[in-house]
């Protein structure tokens, strides 16, 4: 079995098993710990609307805070948008998703994908440098932060190399790219990458909780 066959076959299968297994374990195990019912009389009964609003508004620049977090805010936007474009609209990726999900969608040209991936990578590096140099971030960072950033950087780099056929034979690059993504899958449920699944529930609850007190969160 070649490295690529291993990467596309058993490694992929096991990493997906761990991903799905771990995400559900973490997700249900966390959420189902449960919350006590709030017995206070709500100021207004618009929990769902408030929760949904907060999901949206936490993605918007906020007047009062914006001036202090502009760099993080916009680098955060750019990073996520660039990552999503590179991940979701690259033709080989869509074929991969199609093989797993059973359906696909239109893709963007390779050149655009490469540029967005390069942008994502550059921002990620800037954020890593910030994490290593900013006193607050240095203090609050732990192994999870660094492992998570590595498992995201490596697929980006190997994906770009594979797409441009630089550095090694294509099947080797492709295999390493597969394996790096599989490392990401395996790490995903155990670290902060779970924010992908939990951010919106968390925002929703914050919005609903503040909303019942009459505060826009």
């Amino acid at each position, binding site marked *: 079995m070649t490295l690529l066959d291993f990467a596309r076959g058993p490694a992929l299968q096991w990493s997906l098993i761990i991903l799905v297994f771990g995400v559900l374990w973490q997700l249900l195990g966390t959420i189902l710990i449960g919350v006590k019912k709030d017995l206070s009389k709500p100021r207004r009964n618009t929990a769902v609307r408030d929760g949904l609003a907060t999901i949206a508004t936490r993605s918007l620049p906020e007047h009062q805070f914006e001036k202090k977090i502009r760099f993080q805010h916009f680098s955060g936007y750019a990073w996520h948008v660039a990552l999503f474009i590179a991940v979701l609209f690259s033709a080989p990726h869509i074929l991969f998703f199609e093989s797993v999900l059973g359906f696909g969608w239109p893709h963007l040209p390779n050149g655009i994908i490469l540029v967005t991936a390069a942008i994502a990578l550059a921002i990620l590096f800037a954020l890593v440098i910030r994490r290593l140099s900013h006193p*607050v971030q240095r203090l609050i960072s732990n192994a999870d932060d660094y492992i998570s950033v590595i498992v995201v950087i490596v697929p980006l780099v190997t994906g770009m190399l594979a797409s441009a056929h630089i550095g090694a034979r294509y099947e080797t690059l492709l295999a390493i790219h597969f394996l790096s993504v599989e490392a990401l899958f395996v790490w995903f449920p155990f670290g902060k990458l779970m924010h992908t699944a939990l*951010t919106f529930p968390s925002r929703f609850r914050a919005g609903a909780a503040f909303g019942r007190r009459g*505060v826009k969160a």
Partner: protein
Amino acid sequence: MSVDNAAFRDFRESLERLGIDTPSEVISDEERVRRAKQTFMDKLDGRMAVDLTTCVHCGMCAEACHFYEATQDEKYAPVHKFEPLRRFYRRELSPMRWLFRPFTRDITAQDLETWQELVYDACTGCGRCDMMCPMGIRLSTLINVMRQGLASAGLVPAELQALQNEQRDSDTVFGVGAGKLREVIDRLGRQGIEIPLDKDQAEVLVLTTAVEVLLFSDALAATAKILNRLGADWTMLSQGFEAANIGLVSGDEVTQKRATAKIVEQAKACGARTVILPESGHAYQALRWEGANVLGEVLPFEVLAMSEFIAREIDAGRLKLKSPANGSSVTYHDPCRLGRHGGVIEQPRQVLKALGLDFREADSNGRENFCCGGGCGEYVIKRSAPLRQKAFEIKKREFDETGADTVITSCANCRINLMIGADNAGWQKPVESLVEKVAASLAE
């Protein structure tokens, strides 16, 4: 007007003495850790579990914190203030606890002692970081669990511990009992301000706080004037007037529950349909939002903050105001637990508008307002005075920027803390009460 300087000096002196002779409980390190963990286990819920898991350590919360803003010291980053709780969660409660346990350091008594400064001296639970967090994490609730754990471990700072013990053991705060209240009511009665005390039945139950009785009796007088003008069927109760809840701020559930139960019991006894809270942020949180939850029952009356009540009465056309002659300019400081945590943001502004004052909004306000710097009982902790003073500078700068002559607020604690800060800084701007402003402008 409104504040007796001699009384203010006396009060500051009494704060200096607070906690000096509080007997400290002798607890072994193991026992401290055990108690803290037990409380953490009890208090951490599914929502907090989600929050702890979704945090990406971006550090933006630091930018929301007045103590970080004032010092730029990274240890004041809100997310760092519940670090032991995060470790506890990963080791003992998270679904993957047995996987994480070998890689996560256990919490130690040393940790708890180190974090005492961070959660009591350097956090007022203002919740500004809750508004900042891009993940929607409610950091203030997590830091509150830290306070609760430390309280169980016997690590409440001595001053706050002294107040807590007093309320738990004798139902008084700052030594203010029924006698002291009666004294003030009698004095006000002599000034022609009538306060009905201990009526058997009343529509409205009005509470006050020890600080109001001691320092801001004008605010109490103002409340009486307004209610009397409205012709309300109201009363105060000598066995249930204290709205302050030291248990809430120190993190001691027993004290919190006891203080709340006392009010609810009395309100039920006199058949009150409305309970009006004095100008106190944490009292509002304790009764309005947490009251039903600590007692485990729905409250049979509505709870209103005085500012909220006034706004409602003005809105209904029952309370008529005359414009002040000079039309001085004011700005409003939102108490965190009334505004951001309580939802009473628009009401005080409506009142100020009705007063016809030249109202000027500070740079930070409403849900994004900066804390006075001494909330959540912090102003009694002597150790944190220099830190509070630095945070006060933020408020001072923002107030000055508005160009307003007067700072209005609606929380006695905010008022004291701002006054102490101003006193120390030699800053001259008066910090006044909203209720007093209204009472002074009642139409003839």
